[in-house]
């Protein structure tokens, strides 16, 4: 990604930004986040198909914010996250510059978040085929088959909260699980505690999740928790015509339509 490196160097030399967040070569075949603060660091920048970690998770991180204005090498999911974060007043043009990477791996720099939004809105959020099939499979199950599926899948979860840490939208300083008056979600990893934790997370991400799979990729036990948010995503589409992260902040779950349709309220 030559032009990315070039641009990163310029930005750092001119100290237009204090840090450029991108990807570097990691252990073995892994790639990982790079925080280039000096021009020479930028040489380590890479970009290829392996670079899937959602870097937006770093934007709200105290240690990173303190460095000053940042530039982020942002793939489509990252850009979506950024727009949602902006809609929730977590970032703005003063502290963030977006170095967009198009699905065709072209570098495209945006003057401001409005441009980013316009770009992002050209693409619909689409759930990949494999997961679509998985969703259909679950839909076809009986309720108690689904119950078994989820209790089994979630039982191994030991609540390391990697899913939360890796999710750009989980930037809350106090997560509901950390709230203990009352203790909504059991702290201990138990079948119930795990179930409630992931249920709560799915609800809190409804209308905000942009389907980047960061949670699933982060899970050391590969628990398919992203199916929950994907389900919410599809249902949001079905019931309310779906959503796009948008600077207007017309958030799916904090707004309503008087003619919202349902078929279960007597």
């Amino acid at each position, binding site marked *: 990604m030559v032009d990315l490196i070039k641009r990163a160097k310029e930005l750092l030399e001119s100290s237009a930004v204090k840090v450029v967040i991108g990807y570097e070569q990691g252990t073995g075949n892994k790639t990982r986040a790079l925080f280039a603060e000096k021009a020479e660091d930028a040489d380590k920048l890479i970009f290829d198909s392996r670079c899937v970690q959602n870097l937006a998770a770093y934007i709200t991180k105290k240690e990173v914010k303190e460095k000053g204005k940042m530039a982020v090498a942002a793939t489509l999911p990252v850009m979506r996250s950024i727009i949602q974060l902006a809609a*929730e*007043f*977590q970032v703005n043009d003063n502290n963030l510059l977006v170095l967009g990477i198009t699905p065709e791996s072209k570098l495209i720099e945006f003057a401001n978040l409005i441009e980013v939004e316009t770009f992002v809105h050209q693409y619909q959020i689409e759930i990949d085929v494999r997961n679509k099939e998985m969703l259909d499979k679950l839909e076809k199950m009986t309720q108690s088959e689904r119950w078994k599926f989820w209790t089994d899948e979630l039982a191994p979860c030991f609540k390391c909260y990697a899913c939360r840490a890796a999710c750009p939208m989980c*930037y*809350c*300083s*106090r*997560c*509901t699980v950390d*709230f203990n*008056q*009352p203790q*909504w979600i059991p702290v201990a990893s138990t079948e119930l505690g795990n179930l409630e934790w992931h249920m709560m997370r799915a609800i*809190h991400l409804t209308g905000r999740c942009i389907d980047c799979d960061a949670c699933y990729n982060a899970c050391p036990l590969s628990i398919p928790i992203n199916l929950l948010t994907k389900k919410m995503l599809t249902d949001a589409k079905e019931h309310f015509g779906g959503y796009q992260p948008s600077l207007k*902040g*017309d*958030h799916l*779950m*904090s*707004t309503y339509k008087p003619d919202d349709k349902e078929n279960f309220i007597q």
Partner: protein
Amino acid sequence: MSKIGVFVCHCGENISATVDCAKVAETAANYDGVAFSVDYKYMCSDPGQNLIKSAIKEKGLDGVVVASCSPRMHEPTFRKACAEAGLNPFMCEMANLREHCSWVHEKGEATTQKAIDLVRMLVEKVKYNHSLSEIKVPVTKTALVIGGGIAGIQASLDIANTGHKVILIEKDPSIGGHMSQLSETFPTLDCSQCILTPRMVEVAQHPNITLYTYAELESLEGFIGNFKVKIRKKSKSLDEKLCTGCGMCTTKCPVKKIPSEFNEGLGKRTAIYVPFPQAVPNKPVIDRKNCTYYIKGKCKVCEIVCPTGAIRFDQEDEIVEKEIGAIVIATGFTVKQPDFFPEYGYGKYADVITGLQFERLASASGPTLGEIRRPSDGKVPQKIVFLACAGSRDPAKGIPYCSKICCMYIAKHAMLYQHKVHDGKSYVFYMDIRAGGKQYEEFVRRAIEDDGVNYVRGRVSKIYEKNGKLIVSGVDTLLNAMPVEIEADMVVLATAGVANEGAEELAQKLHISYDPYKFFAEAHPKLKPVETNTAGIFLAGACQAPRDIPESVAMASGAAVKVAGLFSQDELTREPIIAVVNRQAAPVYSSCVGCFLCVSACPYQAIEKEEIKNRSGEVIKSVAKVNPGLCQGCGTCVAFCRTKSIDIQGYTHEQMYTEVMALLNEY
């Protein structure tokens, strides 16, 4: 550990008949933190309240649970009692053992167990109650009265006479409402206009009353003491300041064949018109739907003849915004039209008319100048039939209720007919004669005995035309259901009184509830007949249910007193049941992350952004802040907040969580 007092009320036998109150009290006595538990016959009685007060003082209670009726009934009573004993009123909770338990379940173990559970739920909740102090909000001492019928007029005058400002809005060009259409009024037979008109004039001239006719409520925001209303003044196409009400325009207007609303379609009016001679204000409006100029783009006769040049064809609707402290709704009612009754001729027989139309025929100011002439050919009907309960008390027609006023006005109509057509014969078909009310029964007897009106007890199955006569066929149930057929010249239907068109929309604009018939719902059928569930909004007259004039006037004065009471104080104390965003010590300040999604969730725009700054004035973080003046305490934001940073006083996370825990666990 908390010291909670539990007070179980028998409510005479209302509760104790099905619930073992003693057992409930004993069980509660064993809960952690319960210092005192007792059952008593009437907790709301003075001795009952004293029992609570003295227990608070002697046992030093820090929480009270009264297990009696619905908190919607007596919560204020018992909270006041606690306050008088020096306990913060919001440390008092009520378990609803009557409406939600004893009245709806049979006597037995299960019912008592439920009572115990409900008490336990509240005992555990009270442990998490906090002392709260009431919120003071300013009161705008201007009332809005919606509807200029007799109820609206009465309410306006009464409020205005207490020295407070009133804005009266009426959707028609003149105030007066249905009463102005009536000929005479029961039971005294004095002329409606004669007693109403002075009041109408008084309204127009009262220094404290601002009158907007031809105007409707556009929107309502805010809350008791602090409403903001938008009023749409529909264009009259007239400069009222210039208009002298000389009437040149109305006499010269070429469009003369428009059915007059005031005369219930029996008379005609012009396109620019004053609804009736005594109208207030006595100034015309142009009915744009029927005005040649607005239809064809030329005419302007009125403009030409107007001596003061008051006509304004290009005048537009005007929106006036007003700050209001209280609202009286007096939008009245309407009656079903004959086309609602296929069996009575779909309204295809011109001589089958409604009671209201008959009023116009009988009225000196009516189309026939008070002579009873039938619409079809203007002949004086020799045989006339009045049908009571046309639609009313008829579940099949979706109107199971009694319209209440018909029995009386039918008697009046028959009487007026007999007085005006001496050799005429009048018949009344009725189900029951409901003449409850001062001098009402006597009035009906007069109609039957002195004026010889024939009352037939029975219903009419159908009306059809046969050689110029209307055949009214029914049965006489007093003559063991013998069929009756009367060849009538005219039939008057006492059609059911129903809610106005658009009552539902208005209720929704005002955020008040309404019953299945779209009549506005009072806060309590007995004890709060003029209040609505929304504080600061009151009801008067037939918008709440069919009402006759005395009742409407009484309600109006009642509502007026409520408003005056509200205006008697400069500040209003509101329950502190509002949302609060937590604040913590540095470096946290608040667990709120400032996503401000709650802002869009709030129905009252009550959530603001607060910037927390350090000593040198730099913004450390932006967090949500609830404006206690605007917050109404719905808690929509509370359930929505991911970090649980917003909580609502009186229904906190801990309280609600504990209630659920307490219901389902042993304590």
